[in-house]
């Protein structure tokens, strides 16, 4: 029997980006808030100090800052005809664990989505007609617009100190930025980062081909910056150990470097770490949350009553907790009914490896930051005419190589044996003069009727709870798009002077062992009506109005950008609605 703790105004499940933002906003409004986090406290001095943060084996290959599959995993299958099997090790995506969540180990690419991304179905059907989209594609409008979110994108960028070059300020197109971006109310808080040789060469080649390259918006800061909370970040030193690693420099925007130093000093906030929420409790009506039950690492079960529940875990675990708590109706792929688990998406990644003459090119690939790089947006979203292409969607294309870490930088030209002296010498002769990376084409992933999440019937976690089951495969739309984008990227590499380019478009079937990104989305999406969404435009559950579900869980489909900027903007947008509307009159903010 769980021991019952004193009531709090609000309980937050998971202390990553969204949990930290919500905790800050709600404590500012005077609420007494507790955050319950599955993983440990993590910080620079103890977990990734400058003396050993740059350990590729430990952090990149052995995932020491992440959730361990032994704690909990997922099962996976390509289609409902297969038996899902557990991921025994991580592959296609990485799941954060501990204070900071994914915000600790990310590369800090801080994008905004395009205005058309938020009204995707209306936009595409208006431009291309009713019959253009595949019948089983279940994309929809978000219920929120770019204009709604712009002030909150701004808030997140100024919290982080994002380094970038604006392309559109209040409708005025500016040289050097991304001319396709939605209008922003003011420039980035800090100028773009400097670029390495490869990134610069890519931008020059892209310009020669008529594109408008822009620096990738970066949460690795170009200069030191003090944010509106009074927290100061340092200047990025291009160490080349960013994603999968903690920043030893305090120069990557994370909850630790932007919010937590202020939040943790507030008398009306506390964090409980190494404590895992096992369910959200409901009253007898089933329509009101009474708090959460959680288990500490010593095995004690506790109940935390609260008036307001903020579900701020990683996307998969948000959906899992909704299903385990009996909130909403599980999605049924046969009938299309039910909202929990529906419209699960990932990211469609592809690349090409390029080899250059080693006597003329030395890219020094190890000089890099997590979000360094030059990109083009000509083939993102609906920035280009799809009418003759046979697919919708797109992505940014960029030279965004983040590192020269040796274990991840073993590309050799085609025809090289996998071992022996020839391999060894090919490695020696190409390390400095090749261009490799996973994410050159970072593209959208539309939602489909047969791609979804539910609870696995066989495999359990260490508490005996069912694992999440992922049923996911790549559809023709994404495969065609990926081939198209990869061709465009390869053309730019050739223009740069590459002597060999090996294209690597995304191929099916979806493979759980092959790292893509950690951008899993959907499963409890936002929308205009409970008939086609789990949460309303303020991220409030349609079923349980004192529950708000944060994060990329809300995305009806995934756009051609990294999601964190949008996740941060949605958190601020939702927090504002809670503080200004909900707290005055607790109940549904949108009437169905």
């Amino acid at each position, binding site marked *: 029997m769980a021991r019952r703790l004193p009531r709090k105004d609000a309980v937050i499940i998971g202390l990553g980006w969204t949990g930290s933002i919500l905790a800050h906003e709600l404590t500012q409004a005077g609420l007494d808030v507790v955050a319950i986090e599955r993983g*440990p*406290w993590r*910080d620079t*001095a*103890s977990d990734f*100090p400058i*003396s*050993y943060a*740059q*350990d*590729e*084996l430990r952090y990149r*290959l*052995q995932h020491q800052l992440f959730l*361990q599959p*032994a704690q*909990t*995993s997922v099962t*996976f*299958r*390509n289609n409902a005809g*297969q038996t*899902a*099997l*557990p991921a*025994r*090790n991580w592959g296609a995506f990485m799941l954060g664990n501990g204070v900071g969540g994914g915000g600790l180990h990310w590369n800090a690419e801080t994008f905004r989505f395009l205005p058309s991304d938020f009204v995707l179905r209306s936009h595409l059907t208006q431009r291309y007609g009713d019959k253009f989209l595949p019948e089983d594609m279940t994309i929809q409008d978000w219920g929120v617009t770019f204009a709604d979110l712009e002030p909150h994108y701004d808030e997140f960028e100024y919290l982080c100190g994002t380094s970038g070059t604006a392309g559109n300020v209040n409708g005025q197109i500016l040289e050097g930025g991304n001319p396709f971006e939605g209008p922003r109310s003011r420039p980035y808080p800090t100028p773009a980062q400097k*670029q*390495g*040789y490869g990134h610069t060469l890519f931008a020059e080649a892209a310009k020669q081909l008529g594109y408008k390259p822009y620096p990738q918006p970066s949460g690795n800061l170009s200069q030191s910056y003090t944010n509106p909370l009074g927290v100061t970040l340092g200047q990025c*030193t*291009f*160490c*080349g*150990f960013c994603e999968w690693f903690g920043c*030893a420099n305090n120069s990557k925007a994370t909850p630790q470097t932007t919010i937590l130093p202020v939040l*943790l000093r507030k008398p009306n*906030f506390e*964090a409980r*770490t*190494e404590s895992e929420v096992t369910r959200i409790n409901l009253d007898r009506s089933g329509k009101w949350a009474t708090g959460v039950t959680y288990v500490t*690492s010593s*095995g*004690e079960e506790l109940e935390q009553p609260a008036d307001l529940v903020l579900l701020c875990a990683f996307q998969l675990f948000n959906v899992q907790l909704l299903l385990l708590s009996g909130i909403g109706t599980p999605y049924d792929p046969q009938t299309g009914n039910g909202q929990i688990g529906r419209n699960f998406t990932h990211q469609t990644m592809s690349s090409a490896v390029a080899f250059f003459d080693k006597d003329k090119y*030395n890219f020094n690939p*190890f*000089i890099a930051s997590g979000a360094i790089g030059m990109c083009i947006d000509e083939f993102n979203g609906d920035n280009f005419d799809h009418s003759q292409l046979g697919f919708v969607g797109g992505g940014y294309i960029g030279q965004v190589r983040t590192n020269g870490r*040796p*274990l991840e930088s*073993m590309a050799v030209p085609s025809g090289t044996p*996998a071992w*022996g*002296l020839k391999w*060894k010498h090919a*490695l*020696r002769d190409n*390390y*400095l003069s090749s261009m490799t990376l996973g994410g050159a084409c970072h593209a959208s992933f539309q939602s489909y009727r047969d791609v979804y999440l539910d609870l696995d019937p*066989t495999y359990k976690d260490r508490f005996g709870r069912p694992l999440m089951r992922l049923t996911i495969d790549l559809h023709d739309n994404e495969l065609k798009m990926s081939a198209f984008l990869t061709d465009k990227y390869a053309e730019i590499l050739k223009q740069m002077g590459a002597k060999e380019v090996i294209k690597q478009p995304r191929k099916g079937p979806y*493979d759980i062992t092959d790292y893509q990104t950690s951008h899993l989305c959907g499963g409890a999406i936002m929308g205009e009506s409970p008939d086609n969404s789990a949460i309303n435009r303020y991220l409030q559950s349609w079923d349980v109005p004192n529950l708000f579900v944060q994060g990329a869980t809300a995305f009806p489909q995934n756009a051609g950008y990294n999601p964190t900027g949008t996740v941060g903007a949605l958190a601020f947008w939702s927090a504002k609605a809670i503080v200004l509307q909900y707290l005055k009159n607790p109940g549904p903010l949108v009437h169905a």
Partner: protein
Amino acid sequence: MHRINRRQLLPSSALALLMVSPAARATIIKGGLPWRPGSADPPTVVTPGGWHYFTSQEAATVEAFVDRLIPPDPQTPGGKDCGCAVFIDRQLAGPYGRAESMYMMGPFQPGTKQQGPQSPLTPAQQYRKALAALDAACRSKYGGKGFADLSDQQKDEVIEGLEHDAFKLDGFDGQSFFHTILTDTRNGFLADPIYGGNKDMAAWKMIGFPGTHYDYRDWIDRHNQTVTLPTVSIYSHPSWSQQ
């Protein structure tokens, strides 16, 4: 060696332990950042000498194997002298070898390639089984000689056979073992020397990776120039006294 977990240490003013049981690690953080001196979690550095997991026969096989995967040349030592077998031995003797981080709950059943490996055996158990099967297969084909005693040409024949699934092992998927030992050997060759391979940073020097510097601000604008900084590893910066 058993290291005291830093989260079992005494609380500071900013960090109060939940007193629910002596083993409790769950913490309440309130009133400030919970930083305490001496709470860092440095890597475990491999110490030389002896085998921690392999038997001497297994070690001989692995040393012979890694030296064919990455042979020596006049400029750079091969897999054996770089310590790749020591690296694999220490990895198998540690948490990786015991599959400590992996999801190891059953049922175990074969799946598709896309679903990933589903073996109930730990990496250490897999090596033990595969190495025994490899030696047995070599003895039966090469007149009683184990892998380590074959000529270089014969060793390459066997490795090629494993790679292309032509040289079969009894009770073990030889091709999958080839991929495992190839990956582990490359990792030993190129990982930080604190893990037992990449002796004297030989592999980093060979490819031109200057190691674990943390600041390239002086170099970001120097496009297409050779970085002249000395090669350093986590515990080998000239100004550090560790090791």
